[in-house]
C-alpha cells in the first residue's frame, strides 16, 4: 500500500487509498460472479445463469464509479510519480474487471442454449469446473499481489495461467472426441465456447499482474509477448 505521509496531504492520501480499495474490491465482485457462473455450468442451471447476467450491472456500475473518481483525482490533485502510475494502473485494472464480468455474462448466456437437461459429458464438465477454480485462484492472487505490490506474486500468475491454457486445450480435444456423437455435438461446441471465455478471464487476471509491475517499477511491458509465447522478452540495448 502507499507509504504513510508525514501529515502532509493527508486528505489526498486517504482519497487515493480509498480509491484503490474500491477498485480492487471489484475483483471480489468478479469472483462472486464467477462462482455463480461455475455453479451454473456444473448444474446446467438456467436460472442461476440469468442471475449472473442481471448482476453484471453492479460490476459495470463499479467501473463507471471508479472511472469518474480517477478523472476527478487527476483534475484536482495532479498526482505524479508513483501516485500517477497507480492511477493509470487502476484504470487498466478496472477495464480488466469489466471485461471479466462481461465474460461471465457470455458464459451465462451460453448455458440456456444447451437447453434443459442437456446431454452433458462428465469429463468436460469436470474440466470446466477445474478451470473455473483455477481462474478464481488467479483472480484472488492478482488482487493480493496488487494490494501488496508484490511483483513476484504477480509474475507467478503466468505459471498459473499456463495451467488454465492447458485445460482449455484439453477441452478442445474432448470436444473433438464428442463431436462424433451426433446428439452431443452441439453441446460440446457450446461448452468449448465456455472454456474459451474462462481462458479469457484468466488472461485478464494476468494483465492485472502486469499492472502491478508497472506501478512498482515504472516499466510497462507484458510478462509474455503474445506473439512469442513461452519466450521471455529480449532486453533492448541501453540508449546513450
Amino acid at each position, binding site marked *: 500500500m502507499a507509504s504513510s505521509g508525514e501529515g502532509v496531504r493527508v486528505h489526498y492520501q486517504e482519497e487515493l487509498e480509498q480509491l484503490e480499495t474500491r477498485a480492487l474490491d471489484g475483483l471480489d465482485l468478479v469472483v462472486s460472479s464467477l462462482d455463480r457462473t461455475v455453479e451454473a455450468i456444473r448444474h446446467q442451471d438456467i436460472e442461476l445463469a440469468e442471475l449472473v447476467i442481471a448482476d453484471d450491472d453492479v460490476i459495470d456500475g463499479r467501473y463507471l464509479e471508479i472511472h469518474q473518481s480517477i478523472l476527478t483525482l487527476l483534475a484536482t490533485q495532479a498526482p505524479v*510519480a508513483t501516485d500517477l502510475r497507480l492511477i493509470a494502473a487502476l484504470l487498466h485494472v478496472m477495464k480488466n474487471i469489466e471485461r471479466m464480468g462481461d465474460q461471465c455474462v457470455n458464459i451465462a448466456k451460453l448455458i440456456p442454449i444447451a437447453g434443459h437437461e442437456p446431454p452433458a459429458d462428465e469429463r468436460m464438465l469436470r474440466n470446466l469446473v477445474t478451470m473455473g477454480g483455477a481462474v478464481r485462484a488467479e483472480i484472488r492472487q492478482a488482487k493480493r499481489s496488487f494490494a501488496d505490490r508484490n511483483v513476484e506474486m504477480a509474475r507467478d500468475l503466468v505459471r498459473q495461467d499456463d495451467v488454465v491454457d492447458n485445460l482449455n486445450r484439453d477441452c478442445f480435444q474432448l470436444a473433438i472426441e464428442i463431436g462424433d456423437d451426433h446428439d452431443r455435438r452441439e453441446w460440446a461446441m457450446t461448452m468449448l465456447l465456455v472454456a474459451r471465455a474462462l481462458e479469457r478471464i484468466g488472461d485478464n487476471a494476468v494483465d492485472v499482474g502486469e499492472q502491478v509491475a508497472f506501478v*512498482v*517499477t*515504472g516499466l*510497462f*511491458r507484458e510478462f509474455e509477448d503474445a506473439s512469442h509465447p513461452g519466450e521471455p522478452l529480449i532486453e533492448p540495448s541501453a*540508449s546513450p
Partner: protein
Amino acid sequence: MDDPVTQEERRTEERAAGGAGDGATAHASIEVRPGFQHAAPSASNEKVFELHDISVFYAGVPAVRDITMDVFRHHVTALIGPSGCGKSTLIRCLNRMNDLIPTARVEGELLYHGEDLYGPRVDPIQVRKLIGMVFQKPNPFPKSIYDNVAFGPRVLGMKDDMDDIVEGALHSAALWDEVKDRLGSNAYGMSGGQQQRLCIARCIAVQPDVILMDEPCSALDPISTGKIEDLMAQLKQEFSIVIVTHNMQQAARVSDRTAFLMVELDADERHRWGRIVEYDETEKIFTNPSNPRTEDYVTGKVG
C-alpha cells in the same frame, strides 16, 4: 538464473531504494512515453554551464554545497525544492549576482561554454550582459515603457537603432501588441503580468545568451502565469533558460530537465544548506524518479 526482464526489474528496485544520485543517466527500458508535448524536442547536447562541486558561503555559513550539474543549450532547466534549499543562491551564481553581497564566497568550478566564469580576467559586467535575470517581483524602472527596454542597450553602448531594438524585444516578450500605442507611458501603469513581461523584454533587449528566472510567476495571477509559461516555450528556441520555481506543476509543465534540491542539516543542527538530490529529465522526475526523497517531495508527502 533470472531472465533479463526480472534482472532489469530487480536493478530498478535496488536503484529506487538506493541513496542519493545526481545527474542520473537514463536507464534502459521501453517505458511508455507520456503523450504531452514540450514546445520543441530539445535534443541539444551542447553545454551552457558546467558546475563542479559548487558551494556558496555567506559569512562562512554554507548555503549550498557540492553542486555538480550541467545545463544544456536551448533547454529550460528548472530548480525545485523546499524553501531554504538554496535555489536562489545557486541561480545567482550563474550571473555573478552574488558578487554584490560582500560576505558571499563561491567555491568550486563554474564553466560557461567551457570558460571559468569566476576567472581573474572575467568582467562581471560582461557576464551579466550575456546572462540576464528576471526577478520574483516585477521590478520595472520608474520610467516609460520605451526607456525601460532601452536602458540596457543604452548603458552598454549598443549602436543599433534603438526603436528597432525596443520593438524587437517587446515582440519577443509577447508584449508589443498591448503597448505599441503607449510606449511613452509610465511602466507602473501596467498590470503585474505585463510588468513582468516588460522585465523579460528589458532582459532580451541586450541580446543575452542565457535568461535566468528566479520564481518569475510567484507574484502573478494564473492567466499571466500561463502567458509567461507559453513565452518560455518560445524563448528557449533562441536562449537557454534556467528557472527557479517552488511550483512543481510549473516545473513539470515548462522544463526539459529538473534539479531537485533538498535541505541538509549538520550534526548539531545549527547550520542548514542545500544539495542536489536528483537531476534528470523532467519526465523522469515526475513519472518515475530514482530517488525516494524526490518521490516524496514531488508527490507532496514531504516539504
